[in-house]
């Protein structure tokens, strides 16, 4: 008998690097000019630069795949810690967001926290090829299942949550695009409400990426 509905594939589809590049959005937040912008555009990336954090909700919604964030001179009207304050906020509200600490190398402790919190670091003085390499690697992560599973297990607070079980449940939730079982598992394991919300949000982001790849 012919089954009238198309069954959803339960594997994460792989996407060629060129396709990932086409479908991704990169944002540079820096009060100074970003001179590599034209090179990135030439090479087929979708990149834009904001001289300041002009639209925080857009960042909170995970609109961009990668954000290159400077530490000094941005987000001054939102936090006294400027770039570091923005990074802390994004890590708290949207843990799936990839943020690159984009700065001139410095050694102050504040900068160390900035570098530690970020997903990667990029020295402003690096060659274009180094920028491109870091961005390409991060984009591959962004479009991979492992990245989201890693983020989810990294968020768990409750000691009673079995991380292998959680990983399996998260994988199933993402691939079937159904987070209800994952929600139940977290609730039964006594995980904090806020953490549960963040974990489910990461799973939803992964589902969004999966849909984008499947297009």
């Amino acid at each position, binding site marked *: 008998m012919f089954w009238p509905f198309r069954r959803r594939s339960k594997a994460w589809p792989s996407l060629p690097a060129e396709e990932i590049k086409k479908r991704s959005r990169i944002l540079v937040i820096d009060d*100074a*000019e*970003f*001179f*590599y912008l*034209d*090179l990135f555009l*030439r090479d087929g990336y979708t990149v834009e630069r904001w001289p300041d954090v002009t639209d925080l909700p857009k960042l909170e919604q995970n609109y961009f795949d990668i954000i290159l964030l400077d530490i000094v001179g941005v987000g001054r009207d939102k936090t006294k810690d400027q770039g570091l304050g923005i990074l802390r906020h994004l890590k708290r509200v949207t843990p799936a967001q990839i943020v690159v600490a984009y700065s*001139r*190398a*410095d*050694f*102050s*402790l504040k900068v*160390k926290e900035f570098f530690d919190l970020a997903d990667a670091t990029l020295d*402003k*003085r690096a*060659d*274009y*090829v180094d920028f491109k390499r870091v961005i390409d690697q991060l984009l591959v992560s962004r479009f991979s299942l492992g990245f989201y599973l890693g983020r989810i297990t990294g968020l768990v607070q409750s000691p009673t949550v079995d991380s292998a079980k959680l990983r399996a449940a998260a994988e199933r939730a993402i691939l079937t695009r159904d987070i209800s079982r994952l929600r139940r598992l977290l609730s039964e394991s006594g995980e904090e409400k806020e953490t549960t919300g963040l974990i489910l949000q990461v799973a939803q982001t992964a589902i969004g990426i999966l849909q984008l790849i499947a297009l």
Partner: protein
Amino acid sequence: MNDTAFFPFPHVFRGERKDGTLRSWPSTCLSCRDRPCEQAPVGPVQLCSYGVNFQRLTTDLLVAGIVLRDWTYSTPAYRKRLRENSPVARSDFEAVVSAFRRITAERQAVLDDRRASLEEAVLDEELFKTDYLKNLRAEVEKGLSFFHDYDRINVQIIQNINTLIETRYQGNSSEEKRDRATRPEKAIYEAARFLQEKLEFARFLLRPERLATAECVRFSVHGMILKYIRIYQSWFDAKRVTIRVTGQSYREIIADPRASSVIPHALIDNALKYAPSASEVEIYIQDVDEGVEFEIESLGPRIEPKEMPKIFRPFFRGGAAERIEEGAGYGLYLSQLVAREHLGTKIKAEQKTEPSHTGGFHLTTFSILYPNRAKGCAG
């Protein structure tokens, strides 16, 4: 008791008149009001208008109130003093002066040694936390107040020259594209990289506490050293100095690459500064069981034996080095700081006295063993 307690002749020590152990002040000097001898600078034996000999030996010590028997010329006053006082043979006087000088020099050497070992002890313990270095940092901060501006400008230069080269030339790698760039484009790129390294270096001087929170990654020592050779190559070429790299190294160590870079940077920079033109710099990089040995040998200015223990001290510069080239004297200090505090090792320096055909330059070797895992990355 003071430094001149056993001095045999009358003298003025630090402004105070004292009798000698063999001779006292003569009445002529005791009644002298203007005391012109006390204003005399350090120099040879002189004769005052009252016919009395004197000599300032140091800024603290003046020998006076004596009449030398065989003085070179005679005045009526001198002849009168010869009759009234019992004169001193010039050879006896000179023997006393020379003994005094020898004792003073020996005492100074003992004091220098004591000071050096105290300094060494201070430097050995928590180097960058001492008050001394806190004060030093204030000085450095003042000197580098434009640091951030330089850094910002350099970012602009690097990103723009990269964009120019990337858009103008074809190639499979950025190195290939740079190879095809014009000489001025290459020169701008190299100069910007050179400046970046200099700023990076200054940053460690500004924030040595960074060593306590090192980043620990695996990297190749050989690759790191080659990077600096490349950066400095055009400067060596301009001086017609040949760099020869020997040894075999493939090993990767676990350490902070930026901190570890300070050492080849400083030592290669040193070789560039001091090697005479048309000479050779030999760099040896060799894997050994404990890590990677790095040695740099070049001709350089004479380092006096007494200067050798001091060359790694902050802002110390050897006398001969100072005459050849300007410098601040923090390169070797910072390198040794990284070697000790982060890597848990030590840079060694030695110098061989070469025959005269080296034109007053001496074969100088700096060597260090990069351990497989830095002390700062243990555990």
